[in-house]
């Protein structure tokens, strides 16, 4: 009971504070129309998932830097991997009458109520990096993020072109049931269909280095001939490298390694020739997000799905790119 009262009191206080805040900073905002303020400055509320990995930290940094560059005022909140925190943050953005809300949903479902509130308040919503599962697509303007199927396909296409007699592929999957794991598997399988290449063993390494290492150790003993390792992220690939080395083989030569993500540690291994090919999964979507935000606030039509600009890296490209990698 006491907790309820304190929560209520805190909410009232917060509402009062934010009311003061918005009253002071933007008069145009209070008219209710989702237009940029008179001074042309757009305010964006961004609800981040949390700081779960290096990828996510890079994602946050990119959004903050791009906002500053684009002259957009950013209100940022960190949900610490909890949906209720994100919902609270979005509600407070609605009360503050920001011009546009962007967020990376922690989970896929349970957003309808709060998104409806945003819609009623005439505040456009942009999803980044992860999608929501809702029948009502009018709840958000657009979804900006990676196409995981395409990433898997790129990996498969490269292998097809550079197989060099390789046939047997082992796959290190991400966390069972996670969207990137399902889609990267599908894309890769589609790409290598109809060729000599086939996946002879596949297991989940939970996106972690120790997982990748342990699974690879077992594969090296139970699968008679392994030509290629396809790992759903860099970390599992790095674990696999350790296992391959311990088996007395040379990673990148005796066994080809393909991974997805292109974080710094992965790129270092790629530049050293221990990984052969990395498909980028780009966390630096800040610039694209700010462009979209400007368009949405100006009332322009935007496509409902925008794919992040992503590339791929070979060993040579990694050497030139590596000094610029921040994450």
């Amino acid at each position: 009971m006491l907790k309820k009262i304190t929560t209520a009191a805190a909410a009232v206080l917060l509402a009062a504070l934010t009311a003061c805040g918005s009253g002071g900073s933007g008069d145009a905002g209070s008219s209710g129309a989702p237009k940029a303020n008179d001074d042309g400055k757009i305010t964006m509320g961004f609800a981040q998932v949390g700081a779960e990995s290096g990828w996510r930290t890079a994602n946050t940094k990119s959004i903050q830097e791009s906002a500053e560059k684009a002259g957009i005022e950013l209100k940022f909140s960190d949900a610490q991997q909890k949906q209720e925190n994100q919902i609270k943050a979005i509600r407070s953005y609605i009360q503050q009458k920001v011009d546009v809300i962007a967020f990376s949903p922690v989970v896929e479902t349970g957003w309808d109520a709060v998104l409806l509130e945003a819609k009623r308040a005439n505040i456009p919503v942009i999803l980044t990096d992860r999608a929501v599962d809702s029948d009502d697509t009018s709840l958000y303007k657009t979804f900006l993020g990676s196409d995981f199927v395409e990433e898997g396909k790129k990996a498969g296409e490269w292998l097809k072109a550079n197989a060099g007699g390789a046939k047997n592929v082992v796959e290190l999957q991400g966390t069972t049931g996670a969207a990137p794991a399902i889609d990267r598997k599908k894309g890769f399988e589609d790409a290598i269909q109809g060729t000599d290449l086939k996946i002879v063993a596949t297991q989940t390494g939970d996106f972690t280095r120790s997982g990748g290492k342990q699974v690879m150790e077992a594969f090296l003993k139970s699968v008679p001939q392994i030509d290629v390792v396809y790992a759903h992220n860099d970390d599992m690939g790095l674990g696999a490298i350790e296992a391959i080395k311990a088996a007395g083989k040379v990673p990148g030569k005796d066994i080809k390694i393909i991974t997805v993500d292109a974080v710094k540690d992965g790129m270092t291994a790629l530049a050293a020739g221990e990984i052969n090919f990395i498909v980028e999964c780009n966390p630096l979507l800040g610039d694209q997000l700010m462009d979209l935000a400007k368009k949405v606030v100006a009332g322009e039509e935007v496509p409902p799905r925008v794919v992040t600009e992503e590339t791929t890296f070979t060993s040579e490209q990694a050497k030139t790119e590596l000094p610029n990698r921040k994450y």
Partner: protein
Amino acid sequence: MKNRLLWPVVALVALLMLNVVVTPSFFSVRLQDGHLYGSLIDILRNGAPTLLIALGMTLVIATRGIDLSVGAVAAIAGAVTCTHIASGGNAWVAMGLALALCAVLGLWNGFLVSVLGIQPIIATLVLMTAGRGIAMLITEGQIITVNDDSYRQVGAGFLVLPIAILISLAVLGLVALVTRRTALGLLIESVGVNPSASRLAGVRARTIIWTVYVFAALCAAVAGLMISSNVSAADANNAGLWIEMDAILAVVIGGTSLAGGRYSLTGTLLGALIIQTLTTTVYTIGIAPEITLVFKAIVVIAVCLMQAPVGIRVRVRGKQGVPA
């Protein structure tokens, strides 16, 4: 005692046999770059952290306690060590720092349980949740990769056999010696059966409980070093995730009672080996990831049923039914 260990042994042998049937070369061990190489060696090396944590857990459980924080403590140990090495520190100093910090965490757990009298499951839950946060703070949410040969030895190194399992077996031997060749084991069991009665009988229950939590934290710390050194990186989010559950399971499969007062170190060794063999089996015989957890659950349930009092009674009755 013999009867209690019979079924874990049967389960372990059955799992190994299953592997040999599917992969005939499963038992083959060869010399590779001066160390042994094979699936059995993998089981020993990857099972070493679980075994070590389970050893600490065995003593805690024997005092009728439980320590849920070991996974988080393991993550902290790896985080401290890798962060220190990455900032140019010496690997040995880094490991010393990690052990010292984890001993303090063990003191904290022991303090909550033995002095403040908080239920062990709640007292250690605090650190289980907060510990990952501490590890994340230390690593700033990043995976810290290090390149240090002496540190790599702890988890991935070999002295013919993997160094990790040698460490775990040494600790096992030491614990067996100290608790079974002195009265300490008996005192731990008596605290588990009835703390008040043992205190009235002159046993320092509080000191003993406090000590076992510190020991469990130290075991977790060394296991954390093995886990992170195995991949030369500290992952605050995933290192030692759910390992407390594996450790408790190993202890229970080994026939130690969760109600305290009775423990078996050999049983814990068997339990830890079964759990690691189970994981390796899943990878080796190629069970689809979607059904991995169900497969594991079936094996665990089978082992537990065999050991359960009801299971034993049914089998005894079955034997009696046969005319002598």
